[in-house]
């Protein structure tokens, strides 16, 4: 796609700090003693447990089966015994059920399914079923089951597949390294997705601060008739709506899905996982994660198994040199702050980030001086400052009229606010209240 990408309105340019880990090749993490696999890793219904305490499992063996269409199965990250069905602190701070596996040290492979080597001739339905069976969810953020996105409902057609390699979050380099080192796998995954959707081509969008990744992808992309689109650096370039607009010029209507403008967006890591599932018969049990931050001795990118405790990943990075102010899962703009090191890596954990005391943002909530920075940078073109006032006064009806529901929670407004107002949190609150109100109405 040679035509220039469109620029969406708004956006911010935070210091990306990617240099900490962008030159570090992906390393394979060693096998740990135990893994705690969080049960519910996808948006939608939780999977149903098929093992019990004391069972032995092989690496890749089924731990839980899909609990409905909007659900994906869960597989064992290594071979060993099920020590307990317990609870661990989840990424949102609330304890969640998990399956604890004690490794037997053998790491014995026992995949539930065979590779499909002839993917070019295989039935697309079979490929789609494989993606479901492999438990693949959107690995860039929310954990939306991939097979659901690949199954447009009756009456909706898909004409564009966009692969998100923007990685606009500062600090994170996992997707960057993946595109650079496993370009072929990524492109192959895109080709498989293209085939499932019955399209001719797919577009990989990459921010132009990763020229080496674009080059690597371009080398192999032609072979599979995939195009690579270089995108300007502007946070949140990787947000679904902004990405679709940049590449196709289509605006996803507020409250609607990319499907409604005939697009499917997937992450590059997801594409790589699709390749592994189809060509190697490997379920979704590991992912590339950036472990980074200034307090770390040796930040870098690791291939981590699902269920690895965060404390182990920090050990991999050599531990810390100073006490960080925050521990985040994900990037600094949308990541979730943790208060425990027991949280484990999930299918959508793109980064483990330690933020140093001197670069942390503290919310002090001074009064709004109406400077309009948030208004200028909002990629959804709503009025954060006004909505914030409405929420502060519990006027959720007013917030709704001001289109708070269009907010994508990218955090650009809070980032730019000179008064350090917790705008993003207020909008989340408003959205929760408005949805609760809607439910009440029925």
């Amino acid at each position, binding site marked *: 796609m040679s035509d220039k990408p469109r620029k*969406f*309105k708004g956006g911010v340019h*935070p210091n990306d700090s990617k240099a900490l880990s962008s030159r570090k090749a992906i390393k394979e993490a*060693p*096998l*740990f003693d135990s893994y705690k696999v969080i049960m519910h890793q996808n948006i939608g219904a939780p999977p149903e447990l098929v093992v019990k305490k004391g069972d032995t499992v092989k690496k890749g063996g089924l731990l839980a089966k899909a609990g409905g269409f909007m659900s994906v199965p869960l597989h064992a990250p290594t071979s060993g015994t099920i020590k307990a069905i317990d609870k661990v602190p989840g990424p949102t701070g609330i304890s969640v059920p998990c399956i604890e596996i004690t490794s037997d040290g053998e790491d014995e492979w026992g995949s539930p399914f065979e590779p499909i080597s002839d993917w070019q001739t295989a039935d697309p339905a079979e490929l789609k079923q494989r993606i479901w069976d492999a438990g693949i969810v959107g690995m860039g953020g929310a954990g939306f089951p991939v097979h659901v996105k690949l199954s447009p409902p009756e009456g909706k057609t898909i004409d564009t597949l966009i692969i998100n390699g923007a990685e606009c979050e500062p600090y994170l380099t996992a997707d960057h390294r993946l595109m650079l080192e496993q370009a072929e796998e990524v492109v192959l995954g895109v080709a498989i997705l293209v085939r499932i959707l019955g399209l001719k081509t797919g577009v990989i969008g990459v921010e132009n601060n990763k020229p080496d990744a674009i080059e690597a992808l371009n080398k192999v992309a032609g072979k599979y008739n995939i195009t690579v689109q270089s995108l300007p650096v502007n946070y949140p370039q990787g947000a679904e*709506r902004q990405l679709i*607009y940049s590449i196709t010029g289509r605006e996803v*209507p*507020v409250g*609607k899905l990319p499907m409604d403008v005939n697009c499917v967006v997937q992450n590059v890591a997801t594409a790589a996982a699709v390749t592994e599932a189809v060509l190697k018969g490997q379920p979704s049990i590991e992912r590339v994660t950036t472990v980074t931050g200034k*307090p770390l001795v040796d930040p870098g990118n690791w291939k981590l198994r699902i269920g690895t405790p965060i404390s*182990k990943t*920090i*050990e*991999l990075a*050599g*531990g*810390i040199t100073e006490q960080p102010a*925050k*521990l985040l899962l994900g990037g*600094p*703009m*949308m*990541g979730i*702050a*943790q*208060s425990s*090191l027991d949280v484990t890596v999930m299918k959508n954990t793109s980064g483990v980030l*330690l*933020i140093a005391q001197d670069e942390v*943002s503290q*919310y002090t909530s*001074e*009064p*709004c*001086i*109406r*400077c*309009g*920075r948030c*208004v200028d940078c909002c990629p*959804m*073109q*709503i*009025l954060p*400052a*006004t909505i914030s006032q409405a929420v502060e006064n519990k006027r959720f009806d007013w917030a709704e009229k*001001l*289109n708070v529901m*269009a907010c994508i929670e990218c955090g*650009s407004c*809070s*980032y*730019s*606010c*000179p*008064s*350090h107002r917790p705008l*993003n949190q207020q909008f989340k609150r408003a959205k929760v209240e408005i949805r609760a109100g809607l439910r009440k109405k029925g």
Partner: protein
Amino acid sequence: MSEETPSIQLPDPAKLVVSNSPHMRDKPTINKIMFTVVAAMAPALIAAVLFFGLAALEVLALCTVSCVLAEEGWNKLMKRPSTWKDGSAILSGLLLGMNLNAGAPWWICVLGGFLAMILGKQLYGGLGYNPFNPVLVARVGLLIGFPGIMTTWDKPELGAMAIDGVTAATPLGLAPGETFVQDMLLGNVGGCLGETSALALLVGGAVLIACKLIKWEVPLAFIGTVFVITGIAHVMHPEVYHSPFVHVLSGGLLLGAFFMATDMVTSPMTHKGAWIFGFGCGLITSLIRLWGSYPEGVSFAILFMNALVPLIDRSTIRKPFGYTAPAKGEA
């Protein structure tokens, strides 16, 4: 299997802060913004001191100190945290000084500082909540209360160390044809401290726009409207009305357009709103200048438009990205 090495240090979870995303923030703080505006005002401040000497310095210092003291005194009285460090009181003080005559008596400065900070700002709850520009509340209050003092202007003299008590009329008070654009650009004309040097104000305004601290739409629409309206009047009756250049360069127009109408708290937040706001300011300024009983209308115009801001904000709510009009029949 990983080996536990004692040298590897892990974070102490008890010291980890949890908060909502984002966890980074941009550099500007209220404090930095305010001091940048002060810095942008520096050329005009220097020009004022150059032309009016120590008297100007005295007025500026008095206003600033009284603004800061008024704000802090109020905070103490109301048991609110100290706020002068955010720089807004200092900025208001300097702006107030710029709005006064070099020979203004000390009590005018103190009263002005009190009016601006208490009546204009703190009664409404402090920074961010005031609907009217505090400096203009003070200036207009003083103008109405002490019209004699507030409309007497000392004659500027380049390099003078003290004012000589000779008063001069502001260019707008003179008959058309008696004024010189060159003098007005440099600042060799009568008026309040901030009205003197148009050039210095333009430099400051350019800095503000370059730093994205003000919306460029406001000064452009403001000055443009004044230029067009006074231009039309001048073309029709050159013997009655000044040329538009005189109107733009004289009086508090540049000071008002760059430093006071653009006050973030009291101007609209959207760019569309800024156009309307600037246009309204320009229109009212021209009306008052051409036909009103006051020679100068900038303060009144901005104050009036401040009152309109809530309505402008209300009517310029923009459509979000991907907005589609609700289909008919949908609630």
